[in-house]
């Protein structure tokens, strides 16, 4: 013990092991309380039909226009979001208001944004673009600001006095960070494609629209073709999505936007939405000075809090916790597949293809399919979240594993894995997981729309019953919960002293990173 103390006099508290045990214990408790019942009698028969659909993919059934719409929404949505984020990033570090705004924007999932925007803009390109742009602005602003902050100011300090703000920014600051910003933004576009696909599930004319129909009606050949096309779209991102092609893509996207069928009365809808629909029922046209109004507001709010927010938050946290630990186990099992040291020269590229495919599949879609196969319980949601996220974290860990410098006489195989690689990567591993925590939580809330009783379940009910005031309360609760977990995760990362380890998926690694 004293030897260990000498080696690391400032051992973090609580340590890696303690924190891992705590997370595992909470997940285990949640697992015992969770509903994991498999109610479908023939999941294997259905799964076989599904796989057969992939083998005999029905490519002619894929509507080219829906592919174009998917790319167009993603390019314009992320473009608009990233553009606004760039402006928000400048005051981000100094302004609490801007930080709060960004935290709020990104704590509401794009699917919830879309559900709210549809009320005003209908099923239209505007809804699709804004639903992507709003949360992405919040995410990108935070990351851009971090990238700018991390950078050293040497160039800025030696500028002659009297240099204008624009010149200072463009000549002294931007060149240093441009590479990272570009890298991150292009990665975000890939996420944008996934988000856009999912927006199709609620009716926007992207590939997700056809994918949902195909899965729902068991036309697996068509579903398989759509998914394969989507994988190719993501897999070839580096070929068609480059800084040089961006202007062309942006213009083409504008031209490719779907014409809205029908013309929603946006002005009137917006006025009704803000002035009536989302105003709590007891406050509509009520006298604010009357104490009775506030009493009625409380009588209205209390059952929402006790019967919907309370159980919804509990289920959401349970699902997120189980999924987080399952992700951790999955990532530890998967990362050797993409590490050259473990998988070898031939295994590594195959492992990469596998994990990139897994991470390109949106978790909402995975959950949807798992639900069709296994029946309604928390199990499909857990599987979907952990498969998708284990793919992401495993992929990143594999790259780190190859960056480690091993002794020439290092052990091999399981010994190397258990006694050297995993211990040396463990801090990095926790950093990624704590970072994904908030993201998994946001997704857990959303999966309620598929029938697990997380917050999304109650939001879906409120929207079905046209009780938008209730829906807004629930979405606000979701946002608060996400922000709280985000803060907790940051505090934990700081106390574990892993706050400075890379957590961004896109950050170029060291010289040997080979991105």
């Amino acid at each position: 013990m004293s030897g260990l103390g000498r080696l690391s006099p400032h051992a973090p508290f609580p340590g890696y092991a303690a924190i891992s045990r705590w997370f595992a214990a909470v997940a285990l408790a949640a697992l015992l309380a969770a509903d994991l019942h498999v109610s479908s009698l023939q999941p294997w028969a259905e799964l076989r039909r599904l796989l057969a659909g992939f083998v005999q993919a029905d490519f002619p059934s894929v509507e080219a226009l829906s592919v174009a719409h998917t790319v167009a929404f993603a390019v314009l949505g992320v473009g608009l979001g990233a553009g606004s984020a760039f402006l928000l990033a400048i005051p981000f570090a100094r302004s609490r208001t801007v930080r709060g705004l960004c935290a709020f924007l990104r704590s509401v999932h794009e699917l919830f944004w879309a559900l709210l925007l549809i009320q005003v803009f209908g099923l239209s390109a505007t809804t699709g673009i804004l639903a992507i742009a709003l949360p992405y602005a919040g995410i990108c602003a935070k990351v851009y600001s971090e990238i700018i902050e991390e950078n050293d100011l040497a160039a800025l300090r030696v500028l002659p006095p009297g240099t204008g703000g624009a010149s200072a920014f463009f000549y002294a600051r931007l060149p240093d960070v441009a590479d990272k910003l570009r890298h991150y933004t292009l990665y975000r576009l890939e996420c944008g494609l996934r988000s856009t696909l999912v927006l199709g599930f609620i009716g926007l004319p992207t590939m997700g629209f056809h994918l949902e129909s195909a899965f729902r009606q068991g036309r697996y050949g068509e579903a398989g073709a759509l998914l394969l096309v989507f994988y190719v779209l993501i897999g070839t991102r580096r070929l068609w999505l480059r800084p040089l092609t961006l202007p062309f893509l942006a213009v083409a996207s504008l031209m490719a936007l779907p014409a809205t069928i029908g013309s929603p009365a946006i002005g009137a809808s917006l006025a009704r939405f803000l002035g009536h629909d989302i105003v709590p029922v007891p406050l509509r046209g009520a006298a604010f000075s009357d104490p009775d109004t506030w009493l009625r507001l409380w009588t209205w709010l209390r059952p929402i809090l006790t019967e919907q927010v309370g159980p919804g938050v509990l289920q959401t946290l349970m699902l997120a916790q189980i999924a987080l630990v399952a992700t951790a186990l999955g990532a530890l099992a998967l990362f050797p597949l993409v590490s050259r040291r473990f998988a070898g020269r031939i295994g590594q590229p195959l492992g990469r293809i596998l994990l990139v495919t897994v991470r390109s599949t949106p978790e909402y879609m995975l959950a949807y399919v798992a639900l069709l196969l296994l029946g309604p319980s928390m199990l499909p949601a857990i599987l979907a979240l952990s498969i998708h996220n284990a793919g992401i974290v495993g992929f990143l860990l594999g790259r780190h594993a190859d960056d480690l410098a091993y002794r020439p006489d290092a052990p091999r195989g399981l010994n190397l894995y258990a006694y050297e690689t995993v211990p040396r990567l463990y801090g990095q591993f926790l950093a990624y997981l704590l970072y994904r925590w908030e993201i998994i939580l946001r997704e857990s809330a959303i999966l309620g729309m598929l029938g697990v009783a997380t917050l999304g379940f109650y939001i879906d009910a409120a929207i079905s019953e046209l009780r938008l005031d209730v829906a807004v309360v629930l979405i606000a609760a979701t946002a608060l919960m996400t922000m709280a977990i985000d803060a907790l995760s940051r505090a934990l990362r700081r106390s574990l002293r892993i706050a400075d380890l890379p957590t961004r998926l896109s950050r170029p690694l060291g010289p040997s990173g080979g991105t």
Partner: protein
Amino acid sequence: MIDARLRPLRTRLLTALFAVVQTVLGIAAARAADHPPFVFTGIPDQDERRLVERFGKVASYLEAKLGVPVRYIPVKNYPAAVTAFTNGQVQLAWFGGFTGVQARRAASGARAIAQGAEDATFKTYLIANIRTGLVSSKEFPKAIAGKTFTFGARTSTSGRLMPEHFIRQAFPGQTPDQVFSRVGYSGDHSRTIQLVQSGAFDVGAVDYTVWDLETKAGKVDASAVSVIWESPTYPDYQWTVRGDVDTVYGAGFTERLTAALVAIEDPAILEPFGRSKFVPVTDAAYDPLIAVAKSTGLLD
């Protein structure tokens, strides 16, 4: 120091950003305003292909009868249909009984104009997986208590509202969550049949016309699922039109539209609806549903 330098830049960038936002949204909006056709939708209550088939035929029929371009816009769920109607994206919709009530309450001036001949006396079937051992009966089958149960969409009249009403009548003082071991919402009637047939749920509530259509299409496996109860009748589906169509498409448009719908005789259109013909109807026909919706808490 950096602050002061960045300020003019920020204003300029902000202006540029607003210009871009306006262009993007402007183009999106302009594309919408090109041709204002008469647009309608329907609640997605069953197999999407059947919906596309029947509403496609209705669109071309109405276009010929009314002399305006008519378009059908597909939606993914019931509330999306209601929202498209209330925000004016569509002018006409084929609603279920309850979604129609929702839409007419939210969009003032909207009214029900026609229903299927079968819709005045609509029914719900309770269906059960054979494995449960439940058999068909005249009386409400109280033995379903404790089983797993799936409704259709959350705001379906025949798949949720009315079956919930009958369940609450049969088990006074209890909600479906208390009566059954698990309650699900399948999303549509075709899916309800699949779920009960596969055994994912023991019992389900389904629209009788969809049951008949699916049976005719050979998609129902009689050795796995059967009807165990037929509900009393209630009013259901109807065409509801917005109140502002006469000002947009000319005086008397609503009357012409109603007449066109009622005059549909082509079995090619009526068959995929599971209806023999359409008849005129008024809002008042759906008043009983309002009372039921209030008692089950779906409506304030």
